[in-house]
């Protein structure tokens, strides 16, 4: 497995694999998201307490999961970039960070829209909301740092160090905030005694979660590919300019 991952680090091989995988993953993402969202928004039953408001869940929960998942992916990519100096890991980590920030923003906004009718307020300084907000700030810091240097390589390494430091601190921040204040409901899917959510809601939720995961893969691959192309254009332009000069 590690050998396979290292072989992926070659841009040419990566592009070949990415081109082969991309159409399949795109179709899968579209089908999962399409079925999951239609099922969740139209055919799944309304909640006995929250009514139709509960349908926000089918967007909110997957987005919130992806928010943390993206950070984990980004931190792993950053660590492998620092350890093995794979350029592609740097590209991928930087491509993952805006995607993660978007998922985090979606989770925050849909959370606010869900909070208004159910809790009666757009925003409360509750533990989960606050730690997701802090996660959003960490993404912003990562993006700002990786773009703050004239030398791209330098920005990538600095951002990679920041991502690793953030990954160590994230659990500490999460648990301190949780200790500080809690109103958000606890976990209802991943529990030792099985999910406390009915199957009629669990299935569309699982579909949208998988769909969001596939969407992340698609976006990540497209972003890495376009970044590779952008670099190639830059090299070609430089070669052309020096050829004329």
């Amino acid at each position: 497995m590690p050998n396979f991952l290292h072989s992926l680090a070659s841009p040419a091989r990566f592009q070949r694999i990415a081109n082969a995988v991309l159409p399949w993953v795109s179709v899968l993402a579209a089908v999962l998201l399409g079925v999951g969202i239609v099922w969740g928004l139209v055919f799944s039953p309304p909640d006995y307490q929250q009514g139709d408001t509960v349908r926000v869940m089918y967007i909110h929960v997957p987005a919130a999961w992806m928010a943390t998942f993206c950070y984990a992916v980004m931190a792993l990519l950053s660590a492998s970039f620092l350890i093995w100096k794979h350029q592609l890991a740097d590209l991928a980590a930087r491509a993952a960070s805006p995607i993660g920030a978007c998922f985090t923003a979606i989770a925050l906004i849909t959370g606010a829209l869900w909070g208004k009718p159910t809790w009666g307020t757009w925003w409360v300084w509750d533990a989960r909301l606050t730690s997701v907000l802090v996660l959003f700030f960490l993404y912003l810091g990562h993006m700002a740092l990786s773009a703050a240097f004239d030398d791209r390589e330098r920005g990538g390494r600095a951002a990679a160090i920041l991502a690793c430091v953030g990954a160590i601190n994230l659990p500490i921040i999460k648990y301190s905030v949780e200790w500080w204040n809690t109103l958000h409901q606890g976990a209802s899917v991943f529990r030792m005694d099985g999910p406390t959510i009915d199957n009629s809601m669990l299935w569309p939720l699982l579909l949208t979660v998988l769909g969001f995961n596939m969407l992340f893969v698609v976006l990540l691959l497209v972003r890495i590919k376009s970044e590779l192309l952008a670099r190639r254009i830059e090299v070609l332009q430089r070669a052309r300019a020096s050829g004329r000069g």
Partner: protein
Amino acid sequence: MNAFLAIIGRDLRLATRRGGEAALTLGFFVVAITLFPFGVGPEPELLGRIAAGIIWVTALLAATVSFDRLFRADMEDGTLELLALAPLPLELAVLAKAIAHWLLTGLAVTLLAPVMGLMLNLPEAAYGPLVAGLLLGTPALSLLGGIGAALVLGARRGGALVGLLVLPLFLPVLIFGISAVEATLIGLPLAPHLLILGALLAVALPVGVFGSAAALRLALE
């Protein structure tokens, strides 16, 4: 050990002899705190209720504005390269600089905090936990902030960036610093909060020292 102490001594001498640079952070701390009574009104009850929070948040901000010059001057005049080449590991040099930074900012802010508490009508029982919390919490700020300061070396608009990078990392210190004060005020034991602040410091020590040293090596390449 000599080299370690020499770095601390050098940073302290530089800060005290170069036109009162050390006083800048304290000046910021006092001025920023003075703004709060204008912002929320001068009623003593209200100020007393939020005094500990004002002091802690302002201490965080004062630390943040001071990070910009933690490594920058040394980077510009080449001192940092000599430190990296010296037999003393760069990690220890970073630790020495963090200690000097704490003595100049964190410790000074901690000593000033009771005076500020007096002006903000801080409840009497809160002085002890406030100062104890700041004593344990501010070294962690110096250590974690060093990472941010080292990462933005050579970046465009580095100063504003440091705040965005390090303030989220400071959140646990703030939470437990405040909870130490709040717990004492409602009669709960103080020790657990101070122990957690100590634990945060114990985490910040390796993370800050190794993180900053890695970022400095990157900046020196």
